[in-house]
């Protein structure tokens, strides 16, 4: 993984912050985007594309800008600050999976479209069935007409709005692999739900849907790629969480100074001042968690990387809530 120069990366983050402040606002643009139906991609996605962010982590050879995990975190932090809801991050993660395990035909066909923002993708990995349901995990088998997948996936972020899904499925007894499926394929049934934050998510049921195996058939198991994607996802999420918490602290301090009660600013009360100090201490822990999560993506040993990522997630999620 390469990285942008520090200057490029910082000026990219500044441009993004400015654009989001002007065109999205703190929760304003989000409200508008969330009012749309599940099949509609958030309008902020094209803003991100216009800023050249779609190819952030793709190499030059595929029309990307060659950013690394530090650049991803800078962008995610800004997206967190503005509470952006868009399938940008999922598309980045799918791009990384394609880079790692896709065939050269698949990379050439899809990566430039991802880099230009024409194509949006999302990951379908999770399988958490509700109590009392009899949904089956997703599995793949080979037929004469190619690969066929059946089963279900849950909490697929903006699954109805994106063009393509990247789906994990078990193959045979022990292996599992990633497959590409068109979101509007006849064999894919979507049930759309809003998450607690108002964003759209899909529960997908694959009924003998045709799927394209990522990479070559009989090639290596995709477990390593999925592990790497999940570490990268964690690094991005920790940065997004940090950005949201940072903005919340700033807003809180401003409010405490503005709002007057019993003839004085709320911020004159020591009890509230101490809570602000505690928020800042937690924010510093969340900043460190963001560093730990980035570090985890660089560790060679799988067990070390997972341990570090788990520490980051634990500290981040507890510090910011």
């Amino acid at each position, binding site marked *: 993984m390469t990285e942008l120069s520090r200057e490029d990366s910082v000026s990219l983050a500044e441009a993004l912050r400015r654009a989001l402040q002007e065109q999205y606002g703190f929760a304003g643009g989000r409200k508008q985007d969330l009012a749309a139906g599940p099949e509609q991609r958030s309008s902020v996605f094209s803003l991100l594309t216009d800023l050249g962010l779609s190819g952030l982590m793709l190499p030059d050879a595929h029309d990307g800008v060659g950013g690394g995990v530090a650049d991803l975190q800078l962008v995610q932090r800004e997206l967190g600050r503005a509470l952006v809801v868009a399938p940008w991050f999922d598309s980045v993660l799918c791009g990384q999976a394609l880079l790692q395990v896709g065939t050269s035909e698949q990379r050439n066909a899809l990566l430039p479209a991802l880099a230009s923002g024409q194509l949006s993708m999302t990951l379908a990995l999770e399988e958490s069935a509700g109590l009392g349901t009899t949904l089956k995990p997703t599995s793949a088998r080979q037929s004469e007409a190619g690969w066929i997948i059946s089963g279900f996936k849950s909490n697929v972020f903006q699954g109805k709005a994106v063009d393509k899904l990247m789906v994990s499925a078990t193959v045979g007894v022990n292996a599992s692999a990633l497959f590409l499926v068109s979101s509007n394929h006849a064999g894919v049934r979507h049930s759309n739900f809003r998450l607690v934050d108002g964003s759209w998510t899909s529960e997908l049921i694959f009924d003998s849907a045709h799927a394209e195996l990522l990479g070559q058939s009989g090639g290596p198991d995709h477990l390593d790629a999925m592990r790497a994607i999940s570490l990268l996802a964690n690094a991005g999420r920790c940065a997004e969480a940090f950005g949201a918490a940072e903005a919340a602290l700033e807003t809180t301090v401003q409010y405490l100074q503005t709002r007057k009660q019993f003839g004085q600013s709320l911020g004159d009360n020591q009890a509230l001042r*101490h809570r602000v100090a*505690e928020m800042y201490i937690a924010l510093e822990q969340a900043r460190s968690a963001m560093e730990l999560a980035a570090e985890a993506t660089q560790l060679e040993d799988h067990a070390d990387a997972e341990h570090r990522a788990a520490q980051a997630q634990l500290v981040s999620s507890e510090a910011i809530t």
Partner: protein
Amino acid sequence: MLPLDPDFLARAARLEAELEALDRTQYRLLNDESSAADRAAGASVLKVKGTELFQRVMDLLVDVAGPTGLRLPGADGFGMDSREPLGVSHLYSRAASIYGGANEVQKNILAKYLFDKLS
């Protein structure tokens, strides 16, 4: 409480994660090219968070020691069991949040820093 019970392991793992994060906070502060005010605020963060974690580590250890931690040291100090000093150490750890600038004072410093910076 046995050292291998899940509750102990979860508490230990949580403390380890938070210490790892505090470690990064400390290095960030040492390497940072930020202003004197930012660094002073960082020192307060380390004092408060560091002593809170220290006290939580000692809470865990005194639970591990159980009744073995009840003794005061004799004329020859403590006995063979390495858990014996933990009770006394735990009591001493209670002072950490008031020595070296009470944590409440550190929070006043942090609040002033934030209100100045973010207004």
